[in-house]
């Protein structure tokens, strides 16, 4: 047994290094803005840049809208598919995977061609189209998370149990299904957040003042700041994950994180 657990620790360390080395290298680099000295100069410069704040806030705003829209779109749909048309589940799952397959360029083209015309042109003038695009991009992750959450509970029997006690379908969805997939929803929301914050292609094609293009732009114009920005956004997402893990541990009976089965 000793040998086994030694070997497995070794594997763990190799795996961790594989991912952490680039991160450490980046962090190290971000601290070397001043010659021959480790320091937070690059970070100070980043926080002093008003465009950092404005793009960050804008992407945050868009990601919240995206999360709300995805949940409203995905949860009743996934519930309905599981409950009433389980034969379509594979077809449906395939549809939600399409955004991974269809290149972003196609999506943006298509969306702007549809929504660029009367009476939809307001979509182009506001971030609405950007939100719609992000909902589509985030769909595979959100649908997958929700579906895994629904799989962990016995949707069919719980619904019938609620019905036999007099509950309507909307009541069941709100009072029985939602409370039992909160962790899955959080996990989907977190992935959506990470995707929206880092999204570049669509933001630049639609000329949105988003965080992705900002990162891209300082990457090509500055030396140390890009590393600092990267580390900041990594810390942020890491904090989100931690929060979800904590919430997951508290919730009774349903400690399933979408990633964990």
């Amino acid at each position, binding site marked *: 047994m000793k040998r086994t657990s030694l070997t497995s620790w070794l594997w763990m360390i190799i795996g961790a290094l594989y991912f952490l080395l680039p991160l450490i290298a980046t962090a190290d680099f971000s601290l070397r803005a001043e010659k021959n000295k480790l320091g937070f100069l690059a970070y100070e410069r980043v926080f002093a840049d008003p465009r950092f704040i404005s793009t960050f806030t804008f992407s945050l705003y868009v990601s919240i809208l995206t999360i709300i829209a995805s949940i409203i779109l995905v949860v009743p749909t996934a519930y309905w598919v599981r409950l009433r048309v389980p034969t379509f589940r594979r077809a449906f799952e395939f549809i939600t995977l399409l955004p991974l397959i269809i290149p972003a360029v196609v999506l943006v083209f298509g969306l702007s061609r549809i929504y660029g015309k009367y009476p939809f042109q307001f979509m182009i003038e506001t971030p609405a189209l950007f939100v719609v695009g992000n909902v589509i991009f985030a769909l595979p992750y959100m649908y997958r998370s929700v579906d895994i959450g629904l799989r962990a*509970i*016995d949707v069919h*029997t*719980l619904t*019938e*149990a*609620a*019905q*036999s*006690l*007099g*509950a*309507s379908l909307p*009541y069941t969805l709100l009072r*029985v299904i939602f*409370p*039992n997939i909160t962790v899955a929803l959080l996990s989907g929301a977190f992935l959506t957040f990470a995707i929206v914050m880092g999204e570049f292609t669509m933001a630049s094609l639609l000329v949105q003042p988003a965080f992705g293009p900002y990162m891209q732009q300082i990457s090509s114009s500055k030396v140390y700041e890009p590393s600092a920005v990267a580390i900041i956004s990594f810390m942020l997402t890491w904090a989100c994950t931690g929060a979800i893990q904590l919430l997951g541990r508290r*919730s*009774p*009976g*349903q400690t399933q994180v979408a990633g964990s089965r």
Partner: protein
Amino acid sequence: MAFLTLTNIRKVFGMAVAVDQFNLQVERGEFLSLLGPSGCGKTTTMRMIAGFETPTAGTIHLDGKDMTNISPTKRNVGMVFQSYALFPHLSARDNIGFGLKIAGQSKDAIAKRVNEMLALIKMQPQADRFPHQLSGGQQQRVALARALAVKPQVLLLDEPLSALDAKIRESLRNEIRDIQRALNITTVYVTHDQEEALSVSDRVVVMSAGHIEQIGTPLEIYSQPQTLFVADFVGSMNFIPGTVIDNKGNVRCASHTFNVGTNVSAFSANTAVRLALRPEELRVYNREPQQPDSFPVTLNSAEFMGTTYRLHLAAGELGTLLAEVPANYARTLHTAVGAPLQVQLPSEMLRVFTA
């Protein structure tokens, strides 16, 4: 009209007929079981009573009202599932109160009724636990209380004990029976376990391939099976193929002739039949002294069953016969493998079925 009546029920899924020509009358307060192998339509029948499926044809009346097309949310039927189906995010107490809350009862009324129910299932100490903190048997008791809290007209139980261990299964089935008696609630119980059905029911409906094979009390089902299927499905049974040779009740099985009395008058001569006899109805003796109407057999193996021994007997042309004898009596027999024994088939016990 009976309290719960199913008339000419038929249910088709796509091309498959799940239930057909199903007629049943359940009296108020009766404990009725639907018994059959998986896929026989027993669960579909129950789901039609609950309203989760709509019959393709036929009607369902409850207390005189036509329920056939009423939504399950309006039927006032309590349901207990094999998988318990407790709401994971609610405590035992809130699970039991769920239906009362939907019915719009006051907080006090709900609390009072929930406490009654907790007392009924003897689970007051665990009232605030969540389902995942309860054992399987406790969860199923909460599910029972939840179904009963809203005072349903009919209680439906769908294989409620299948997921539990043997010992808990036995004690919980008696508890369910006691509660059913105490509340005098009309109950339909679905199971594939014949011991379960026989031990708790007032009447049993044996189903196979979507239709009713026999309806009767447990004793009738066990001792007077009407069809080959029931004889085979309920309990153990020896089947001996043979041919009716006259109208005086003589049946030839290989080189043996058995007189089965008037049972056989319904069959004309030369009909191929199967004689059926339960293992405990066979009489087994040592080879000496010779018993009248007996024939020699050899012991293949003996299974110890606690109160009884089950003997596997090689009976030559008649194949293998199964006999069950009390453990005390078995001690007087030769029980080494290969031991010579003799067997009597009491003619008054022999049942006759068309082959």
